């Protein structure tokens, strides 16, 4: 049952990148990707530089290269879309091997491919070096409202529990010869979704009771007091700062 989807991308390692506080990594990834996104597509060398930075980071964090590449498949549908652009884009003005290609479309293809791949790699690296509850903790330290991080944290806590219930239902269905191939056979799936919702909601009520029993008064207690040191911030922000320098040179020299 699509279990692959529920598995996080965390790769257990002991690199310096793994040890950085999550809030520094979250912010660093956001800034890096933002710099990539606003870099003019004509500055091809700049994207090469970004790729080199990411490659260095992959090596540094000891995340297997194959792992990163295999997770990049997530952007594949958009890559396919991008690959069509030279053929369907406006203004057919390049001739290549007998095809007339659109220069605007080709540039657009390059732009999407480069930015989507660099962005996805950054996300993969963040997720591979930071456990999911840590990412949420990082959000909290970046002053995201505690209600949001609270919801995210409960979601993550119960995701595997609920996915496990789903898997057991599917096993029970399969054990009785249920092998859906057509939409006509979807009713038991929808029924299991309904059951899952009711169970999830009722679990939410029980958890709320358990929280009340331990003195919950509507505000999640602040248990997280650690914050990153200046050195850790500098270490993490080195990446987007370097990228920003590259972007600046790219913009000024175009």
């Amino acid at each position, binding site marked *: 049952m699509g279990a692959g989807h529920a598995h996080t991308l965390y790769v257990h390692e002991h690199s310096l990148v793994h040890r950085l506080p999550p809030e520094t990594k979250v912010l660093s990834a956001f800034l890096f990707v933002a710099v990539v996104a606003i870099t003019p597509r004509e500055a091809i060398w700049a994207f090469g530089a970004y790729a080199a930075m990411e490659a260095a980071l992959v090596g540094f964090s000891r995340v297997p290269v194959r792992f990163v590449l295999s997770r990049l498949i997530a952007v594949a549908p958009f890559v396919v879309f991008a690959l069509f652009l030279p053929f369907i884009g406006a203004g057919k003005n390049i001739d290549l091997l007998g095809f007339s290609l659109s220069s605007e479309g080709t540039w657009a293809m390059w732009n999407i491919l480069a930015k989507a791949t660099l962005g996805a790699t950054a996300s993969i690296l963040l997720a591979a070096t930071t456990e999911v509850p840590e990412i949420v903790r990082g959000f909290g330290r970046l002053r995201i409202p505690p209600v949001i991080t609270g919801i995210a944290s*409960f979601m993550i*806590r119960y995701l595997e529990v609920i996915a496990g219930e789903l898997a057991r239902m599917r096993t029970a269905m399969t054990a009785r010869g249920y092998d859906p191939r057509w939409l006509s056979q979807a009713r038991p799936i929808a029924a299991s979704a309904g059951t899952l919702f009711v169970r999830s909601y009722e*679990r939410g009520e029980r958890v709320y009771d358990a929280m009340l029993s*331990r*003195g919950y008064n509507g505000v999640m207690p602040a248990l997280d007091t650690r914050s990153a040191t200046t050195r850790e911030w500098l270490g993490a922000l080195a990446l987007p700062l370097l990228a920003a320098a590259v972007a600046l040179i790219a913009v000024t020299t175009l």
Partner: protein
Amino acid sequence: MSAAVEVADLHYTYPDGQSALAGVSFRVMPGERVALLGPNGAGKTTLAHHLNGIRRADRGVVAVGELTLGDDTLGEIRKRVGLVFQNPDDQLFMPTVGEDVAFGPANLGLSGNELEDAVSSGLGAVGANDLRGRVPHHLSGGERRRVALATVLAMNPSILVLDEPTSGLDPAGRRELIGVLQSLDVAQLVITHDLYFALELCSRALIMDEGVIVADGETAGLLSDEQLLSRHRLEMPYRA
């Protein structure tokens, strides 16, 4: 001496009109361990939820020590009555064991070293200090039970209310749990279908059926009364 918990003539009807508690009265003295036995649907869990006020009775009184349950005493009573839920997955809702155990004492206003001490003593009481950084989902069944107990012990309650603590445990996990519970000198009310567990842990037992207490006495005596047991859908398993 006032009772650890005392309940008098408790009545409760579900919103759908079904009666759950129909006049429950009993008391548990400090340091006493009492088993609460009875068939499914007898109202045991509902009763447990009344003891710390997450359900409020239509009629009757709940008293913990010298305090009577009411809006003004709710906070203090929830601190004193440590309720351990049937399913540890409902009890352990925080990202890590350490944070989960800290949740209760932090709500009581503890922080810094005091909070740290409460967490260590809770985990220490169940021998789980090494589980502190773990994610609840990845614990074994026995570990989850012990940690669930620790989340409540960290609040230093005067009575523990445990709902089906042995369900889903393997024999070793069950044995460890018995050891932990016997080592605690806090009063305990233990809801269970595991009659040998009740016999081993509790000198006194209550039998509940259809929303009332139908028997109250020495565990060994009640459990040897086959007619009483079968009237209430209970049975001692065969013992070699």
